[in-house]
């Protein structure tokens, strides 16, 4: 009798953990390695991206949401520019090992290695955009899901440092052109920030000067 109860508990826990692992509205991808290869091939042919973005930050404890908007540029290799335009003017620029943050009053310059958190985020972003994220199996447990319109790549940090501030990252990829449509960073508390990319243009000329502060 005691054994039966133990088995039922184990079964229930397995079902519950399986349900938790499956993102709502998505199912596990059967042909993950095939899709992964297609995404890597397509994304590796992208040399530059320019798009608008909408960032939504949700804080569960405060029941508050904040929306920010801006423009985004990416250029191979390792060049990123986030230009926030609403509700504030702010630039985050990453270019190789250098990083600048500029507000209305001043520009701060850092080495990315000295700002590890932004360094990690930069690394994740560029890896997603350059198609090398799937190789980061030392940093993330990677699982693939799909619905009718999107693939969803779930990245769960393995390293203690990152686990302290990040529960997981969800990458939403368009099934037609394999481009990243949305990125969601979920914190251990359940608070999250999602960044949706709109009006994308790929492989057009972006001057290197764009990746330095104005």
């Amino acid at each position: 009798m005691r054994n039966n109860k133990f088995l039922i508990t184990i079964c229930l826990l397995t079902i519950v953990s399986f349900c938790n692992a499956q993102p709502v509205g998505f199912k596990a991808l059967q042909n993950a390695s095939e899709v992964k290869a297609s995404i890597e091939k397509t994304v590796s042919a992208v040399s530059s991206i320019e798009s608008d973005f909408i960032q939504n930050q949700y804080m569960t404890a405060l029941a508050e949401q904040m929306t920010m908007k801006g423009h985004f540029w990416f250029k191979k290799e390792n060049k990123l520019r986030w230009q926030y335009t609403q509700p504030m003017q702010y630039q985050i620029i990453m270019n190789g090992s250098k990083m600048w943050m500029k507000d209305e009053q001043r520009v701060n310059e850092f080495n990315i290695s000295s700002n590890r958190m932004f360094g990690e985020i930069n690394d994740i972003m560029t890896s997603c955009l350059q198609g090398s994220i799937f190789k980061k199996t030392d940093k993330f447990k990677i699982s693939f899901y799909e619905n009718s319109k999107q693939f969803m790549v779930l990245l769960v940090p393995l390293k203690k440092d990152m686990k302290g501030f990040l529960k997981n990252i969800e990458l939403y990829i368009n099934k037609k052109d394999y481009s990243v449509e949305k990125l969601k960073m979920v914190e251990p508390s359940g608070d999250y920030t999602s960044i949706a990319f709109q009006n994308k243009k790929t492989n057009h000329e972006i001057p290197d000067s764009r990746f330095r502060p104005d």
Partner: protein
Amino acid sequence: MKFRIAGFALISIFLITSCIPAAYRHLSRETIPKTQRTEFPVIFPDTFTKAVYRTSLSFFGNSLSGISFIKKMPDSSYRVVFTNEMGIKFFDLAFCGKNFKVMYCMPKLNRKIVIKLLRNDLQMLFTDKFEGEKAEKYADSVYRFRYKSNKNYYHLIGDEHQPTKIIFARNAKVKVKTTILYHDNFPEMFIFEHQQMKISIKFQKMEL
């Protein structure tokens, strides 16, 4: 005997005046009677519900910048959530009267000195009563609040209800200068400048 009395008086005067930062020693002083006791002012008005501030923290040459959400919760406590621009949270702090709780702190920043500093600086914005306080009026625009012991003082400049400068002194040494700018009676900007450490924290209200 006379020398002893004179010596005692001199030492007493020295001890009393040494507790007062030099800038206020020349001012005449009047203790506010208990019946007219001025309470330590709450910087945020009663009508306050929430606000968002651009925030920068400079700490011994390191800097953090981001956005702070300050919200008055249904139980009248205040929550301060400080995140970077991309939404990753640095701190989530709760203030309720003189009580304080760290709801979250990014592990890399979770140091006693950092938490103590944030608690002491921010608590003066949200606390209306300090234990063992004694109010004294120096001049029309300078109020002094004794806090905890004779060694800790808050000097308020401006108005006892809406100070524009708060100077925190311990053992007659100025520790923190806080400057507050208001717009329509609402705190638009506040800056904490630590005088004996290279630390400053700035909050600038954002219009959403």
